[in-house]
């Protein structure tokens, strides 16, 4: 689960913390019970200057037989979300570094360029038909023709703005995905760990880049930082981070599924109900989980699912076609840590999802602080069918390939 981040004490933030002395606790501590006051659990920050791959125990990474994982590029501060240009450029975003980077493959050597600077939490990134779409804290912009002018990028055009009217303290970074309907899908997170969201918060939204028209797709979503569309059914699938401070084993982070044909807005329950079946101890008192849509899959407690991508390449074996890969960035809010891996979700004939490990080994010591040496964030299927994934903790992109 991501740390909650405050900038200034906006009024909404003060209101959200009304039960606690204002401004004293870091926002990610919001929702702790008194017995947890001496907890030493805390979120982890990335190495902003990156770490050299040579320093890292890469030989501890494990992949299924026939697969290979290797470092593809390094030196990309806080490498987060990934997008692939038409001409092979890999665009890399972040939350904290305020830049966007481009990785250009030059005959086996990867050159890292800083192409945009001074952005406001530029976490969401999508490339389509020559245009780079970028979701910052408060707006979504487009950079047309950018891949042909990486050294002199075009001026952005705003698709939609005013996405953060309250300057919310937590979960203000946005993931961005392009739907089969040509619309841009993104999250607006809950402003705190466990607080009553205001209008537009704790939601999945979409905007039509043609006219800037906004629509709500789902609500009751604490924070989704990974989404993709099933290549067959065109349905939306997204990951969600459940609340903190309910203990090591509750509640699960979740995978959700919404048909784009469904009418209206689906409500997944936050802050009243977690994981589809667990009422919140405070907000759930007067509500029933039966009111809300259920998740498609429970992913693990505090495991922090980020990027989710369907495999659409040709390199991996046939049984991997249409599988959904999920990058697990956590957990920090657990005394015994889990996750820090890439998981594979396959579907049976009835479409029921089943999860198994795909890339493991970043979790070195489940009780250490920090417990891990790397943190997967987002995934990208390359033209050759290999799959990249980012690691913001070290500023590294890894490549997973397969050969018989």
């Amino acid at each position: 689960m991501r740390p909650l981040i405050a900038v200034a004490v906006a009024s909404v933030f003060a209101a959200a913390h009304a039960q606690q002395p204002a401004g004293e606790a870091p926002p990610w501590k919001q929702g702790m019970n008194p017995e947890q006051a001496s907890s030493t659990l805390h979120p982890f920050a990335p190495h902003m200057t990156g770490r050299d791959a040579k320093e890292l125990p890469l030989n501890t990474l494990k992949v299924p037989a026939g697969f290979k994982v290797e470092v593809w590029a390094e030196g990309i501060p806080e490498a987060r979300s990934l997008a692939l240009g038409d001409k092979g450029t890999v665009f890399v975003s972040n939350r904290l570094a305020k830049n966007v980077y481009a990785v250009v493959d030059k005959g086996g050597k990867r050159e890292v360029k800083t192409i945009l600077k001074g952005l406001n939490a530029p976490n969401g990134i999508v490339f389509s038909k020559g245009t780079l779409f970028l979701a910052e804290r408060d707006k979504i912009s487009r950079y047309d023709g950018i891949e042909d002018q990486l050294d002199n990028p075009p001026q952005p055009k705003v698709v939609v703005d005013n996405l953060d009217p309250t300057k919310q303290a937590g979960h203000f970074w946005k993931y961005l995905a392009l739907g089969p309907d040509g619309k841009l899908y993104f999250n607006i997170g809950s402003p705190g760990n466990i607080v009553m969201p205001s209008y537009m918060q704790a939601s999945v939204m979409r905007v039509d880049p043609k006219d800037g028209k906004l629509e709500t797709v789902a609500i009751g979503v604490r924070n989704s930082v990974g989404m993709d569309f099933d290549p067959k059914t065109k349905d939306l699938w997204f990951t969600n981070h459940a609340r903190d401070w309910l203990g090591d084993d509750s509640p699960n982070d979740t995978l959700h599924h919404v048909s784009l044909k469904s009418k209206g807005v689906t409500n997944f329950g936050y802050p009243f109900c977690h994981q589809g079946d667990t009422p919140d101890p405070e907000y759930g008192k007067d509500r029933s989980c039966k009111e809300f849509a259920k998740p498609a899959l429970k992913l693990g407690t505090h495991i922090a699912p980020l990027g989710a991508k369907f495999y659409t390449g040709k390199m991996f074996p046939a049984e991997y076609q249409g599988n959904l890969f999920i990058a697990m960035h956590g957990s920090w809010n657990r005394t015994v840590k889990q996750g820090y891996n890439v998981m594979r979700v396959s579907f049976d004939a009835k479409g029921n999802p089943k999860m198994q490990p795909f890339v493991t080994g970043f979790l070195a010591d489940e009780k250490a602080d920090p417990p891990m040496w790397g943190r997967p964030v987002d995934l990208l299927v390359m033209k050759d069918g290999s799959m990249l994934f980012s690691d913001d903790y070290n500023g590294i992109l890894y490549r997973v390939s397969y050969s018989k």
Partner: protein
Amino acid sequence: MKRLLAVAALALAGAATAADPAAGKAKAAACVQCHGPEGNSQNPAIPSLASQPAQMIATQLFQFREGNRKDPQMSPMAANLSNADMNDLAAYFASVKAPLPAYRSRPESAAAGAELTKKNNCVQCHGPALRGQQHIPRLAGQQHDYLLAQLRLFKASKRADMDGNMTSAAQGLNEQDIDVLADYLAGLPAN
């Protein structure tokens, strides 16, 4: 929106080498002019770097280079450092021992300061002995005037703050709290 025009490559994959304290020491000649011998500051307004967590030092250098944190002296110093330079410098200063602080806290600050560090969650991130961890700085034995200035800046939401935690935490402090905290922290042993 500010944009960077033509930018040289930051790094080539595989070209960098591991963070190296010896290399950092060789690059630290300019740093120790102000931060003191081996990064043990002699100036109350300038922070000590010795025995600070390596990730913290590299993160702050990064913030200066990227323009997120601004300072008339430090911004130009960091402007031309590569990520590898920052990691080397961080590895060096983190490896140096800090002597007992010359600063003497007021006796009455001992209990009051300790209480404030608990009440305001300082110990949760900076550690029970306030010696820092990961990206979080050591406060124990840090220079008094520097601590005072930074706490005031956080309180005023004017200090660069990567994840917002300190800006948030400082809102609960009044000027007297800040005075007691700086006095208490500056006298604590660093190692």
